[in-house]
């Protein structure tokens, strides 16, 4: 049991210690306002990262999430501002398109036996390409519902607010944990990521699970796109470039193995917040340049991977060779 939870414990400890160190340096850091903003600013990355966790647990990867987020913002802007649809309808369309897009990629991956890396790379090109074709301009969204939704927030007594995007992210993570750890679908994903062949022999519906995993990632990327469009109030075809990397990094820092089969959804939440914490620290400091974010995240990635390797080597002692990567 401890083996399963150790990476999560380490991730959470890094998050807490990191937060305490920040708070020790800047007294204003330890406030509900900062915590609220940390959750709001990273909401779209978090939602997409939850989807990425499932994909990686199943032994795959989804490079298209950033492009799907960008595409969703453009689609929403076009539907609301140019077609004149009500935002609620536009949201439903966007979620359906994201889900269908993910399912299509999953189908290609399963039935044509093509590597997920390449299929989702093509998906990334298609999603970005279609958003370029729709528009290359940044379209502002001025629907009154947008400002209404942005006002929805749960205010802390001590100042600061838990915005709608932050609540959505927390909800997504709660549901994802339920899905991953207490449903048959979740068990199937772990089985598939552990060993595809054994899973098949055990009776796991490989085709259905693979398609569903990518569809889920597409759905959550669509939701992340909606949150991003609420957050920025605009649709832009270059929005959320490179978010797929942020999400993969968050998943790895969260203790999930990229080979699939091992990891916890809650770890990804920690990974997202650690990345956000680094960014917030650099904003607070004011004198440090933005590139230190990248270097710090790179170093963290390295440390976490080494740690996991070390833990794995200790556990798989009786096997001699550590699992071939």
């Amino acid at each position, binding site marked *: 049991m401890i083996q399963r939870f150790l990476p999560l414990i380490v991730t959470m400890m890094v998050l807490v210690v990191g937060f305490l160190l920040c708070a020790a340096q800047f007294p204003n850091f330890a406030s509900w306002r900062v915590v609220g903003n940390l959750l709001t600013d990273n909401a779209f990355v978090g939602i997409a990262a939850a989807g990425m966790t499932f994909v990686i647990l199943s032994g795959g990867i989804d490079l298209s999430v950033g492009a799907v987020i960008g595409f969703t913002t453009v689609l929403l802007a076009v539907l609301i501002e140019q077609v004149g649809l009500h935002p609620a309808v536009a949201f439903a369309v966007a979620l359906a398109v994201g889900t269908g897009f993910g399912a299509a990629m999953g189908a290609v991956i399963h039935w044509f036996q093509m590597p997920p890396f390449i299929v989702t790379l093509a998906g990334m*090109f298609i999603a970005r390409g279609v958003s370029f074709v729709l528009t*290359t301009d940044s379209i502002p969204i001025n629907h009154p519902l947008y400002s209404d939704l942005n006002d929805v927030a749960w205010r802390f007594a001590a100042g600061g607010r838990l915005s709608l995007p932050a609540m959505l992210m927390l909800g997504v993570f709660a549901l994802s944990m339920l899905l991953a750890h207490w449903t048959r679908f979740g068990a199937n994903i772990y089985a598939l990521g552990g060993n595809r062949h054994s899973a098949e022999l055990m009776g796991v519906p490989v085709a259905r699970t693979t398609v569903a995993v990518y569809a889920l990632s597409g759905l959550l990327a669509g939701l992340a796109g909606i949150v991003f469009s609420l957050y920025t109030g605009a649709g832009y075809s270059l929005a959320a470039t490179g978010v797929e990397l942020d999400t993969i990094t968050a998943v790895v820092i969260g203790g999930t193995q990229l080979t699939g089969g091992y990891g916890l959804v809650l770890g990804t939440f920690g990974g997202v917040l650690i990345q956000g914490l680094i960014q917030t620290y650099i904003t607070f400091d004011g004198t440090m340049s933005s590139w230190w974010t990248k270097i710090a*995240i790179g170093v963290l990635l390295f440390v976490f991977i080494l740690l996991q390797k070390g833990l794995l080597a200790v556990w798989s002692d009786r096997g001699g060779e550590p699992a071939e990567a």
Partner: protein
Amino acid sequence: MTLSSSALRRNLPQCGALIAVLLANWLLFPDFFSIRVQDGRLFGSLIDVMNRGAPVALLAIGMTMVIATRGVDLSVGAVMAISGAIAATMTQAGWSLPLVLLAALGAGLLCGLWNGVLVAVLRIQPIIATLILMVAGRGIAQLITEGQIVTFVSPGLAAIGSGAVLTVPTPVVLTAATLAVTALLVRATALGLMIESVGVNRLSSAYAGVNTPVILIAVYVWCGLCAAVAGLIVTADIRGADANNAGLWLELDAILAVVVGGTSLLGGRFGLLMSIVGAAIIQAMNTGILLSGFKPEFNLIVKAAVLMVVLLAQSPALSLLLPRPRSPANARPIAAKVTGKAPGKAHKEGSAP
């Protein structure tokens, strides 16, 4: 790899795609194949394709070796930015050209060494091992340029990007030279065979006496060096280093070129020349879309469509569905097990993760 009829048939989809793209360009733009000499160097759309495609082709050479070992190098774009940043910053500070080149290439070598050690010694999965440098590398490049776009005046360095050797643009010459050296290293010696064997099964290769850590490190170092040369070309071309954008997303283009060229991401058999063909297809499409007056917005969609067509043509699932498989070497493990004709050639064997 001898150019047997089966090899020829295997490479048919890519070569066909390249010819089709070139012909489409020619139909849209009748002057496409015309080449003229002006100011002591060749000019023409075809030359432009080769010149613009040089960085991705260079990356594809190194990437082919890495992918053949069942790895992938996501950091090449960041390595390009680092080598470019070093070259521009040192030139601006007044260092001599040979030292600048040496430092830039040395940086690429070190980056490759880092990746190689992570993969070979620490046994980290290549996609994560190189993700570290992909994320941190661009930060390091920005650290070197201090976040500025560093411009420089140096005819010597600029010649690497925009000069010409015997009328041929320098980037094309550099790419051809790198290809020749790499091909000689892997095909005239047993090195290529060892790389393929590590890709097929790392453990068996080690038992068979292949020094797998050295092979793996060498492959990543070579990939880093190729990326450094590509970074020099890009920096020399714009006479400045933009740490944010130099080589951005080129790692994906390079992987695409290699995969379109028919090298499997599962490792094993690789085709250097076909990777260059893959890079040429990508660049010919880019140039074609620009020439045809289509909006460049369509670029990505066309790229994705061609990619899917070429990949589906090579898809093992599809060749099983078809009544007669195009070539025995392409068949899936089931067929390889049944015929067992050429055990050394059943490179695609091995359980997919």
